[in-house]
């Protein structure tokens, strides 16, 4: 899903540079001073995990391949704002590696960071809320996030397809094709998301914002509350 330079028209790249830049600046402002410095090593490792997972493509027989994006995973673990910051870092290093263009960086950050983090977070939260009535929280967050990761991958591919309609030669049939191939890639995303999340659920459950007594609830808040005086306010994240 990394778009190189020279495909999408410049006007669209510039618009999405501005949009993504504003979201990134707002995300940094939102996470600033909202988490304890003892969490820093874990956040660094999460960024490294997503970068490593994006390095390796799994096959989509017979003609294509895909890789983990990780936005939904990050959004559920540390919230959409910290997720956007991590995706911005990962995508920037990848752009320096030649995977995704430097001019297309804003568009790639919008698709795989801004849009996917918020959409993945919202879909996961809805599924988690529904599923926790039938199972324990750990199982609900793992299954709910995996399903949300699948949906997010397909919807993000559709959004990318809409952007590509601005390219000469890319038509509605190609939009269906890019969405369709991501139905299979989404299954891979869901499997990898559940595998990584399962590890953290068992080894470091306090790093998952949806779970009770999480250390990252404050940074993962989407609706602003006064954390110092209102522990109740954190319930907007997971309850």
């Amino acid at each position, binding site marked *: 899903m990394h778009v190189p330079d020279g495909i999408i028209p410049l006007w669209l790249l510039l618009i999405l540079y501005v949009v993504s830049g504003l979201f990134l600046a707002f995300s940094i402002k939102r996470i600033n001073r909202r988490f304890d410095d003892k969490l820093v090593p874990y956040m660094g490792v999460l960024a490294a995990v997503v970068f490593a997972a994006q390095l390796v493509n799994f096959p989509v027989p017979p003609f*294509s391949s895909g890789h983990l994006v990780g936005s939904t995973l990050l959004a559920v673990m540390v919230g959409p704002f910290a997720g956007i910051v991590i995706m911005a870092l990962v995508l920037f290093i990848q752009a320096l590696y*030649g995977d995704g263009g430097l001019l297309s960086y804003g568009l790639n950050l919008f698709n795989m960071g801004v849009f996917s983090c918020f959409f993945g977070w919202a879909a996961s939260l809805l599924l988690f809320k529904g599923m926790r009535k039938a199972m324990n929280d750990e199982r609900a967050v793992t299954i709910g996030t995996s399903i949300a990761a699948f949906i997010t991958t397909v919807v993000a591919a559709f959004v*990318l397809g809409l952007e590509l309609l601005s390219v000469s030669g890319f038509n509605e049939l190609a939009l269906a094709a890019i969405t369709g191939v991501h139905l299979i890639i989404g299954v891979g995303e869901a499997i990898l998301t559940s595998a990584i999340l399962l590890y953290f659920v068992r080894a470091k459950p306090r790093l998952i914002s949806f779970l009770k007594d999480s250390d990252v609830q404050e940074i993962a808040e989407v609706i602003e509350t006064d954390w110092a005086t209102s522990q109740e306010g954190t319930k907007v994240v997971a309850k």
Partner: protein
Amino acid sequence: MEKETYIKFVIPAVVVLVAIIGITILSGLASDNPDGFEWAVFDFAGVAEPECGFPGIFSFLGEGPLVDVLTGAVGIVIVLFIGLLIFKVTSRKE
């Protein structure tokens, strides 16, 4: 506490990540097929693949599984360090 976290969690995590991508790439398990975007745009829709563009900071090393593992490992360490730096700066000192 923080030093202990780095020794017990961060360093082993980086070693495991590098090992996983190393084994996956060198054993040929990673796919060389075009990804979903490339397939849909270049193969299916027939859009011309751009020839210009930034080739990447490690393009001078050429291509191959060994180069992919080496540059991947360097990238993991770079992302880790910059990530630690960003989150250190934005964290709250307790």
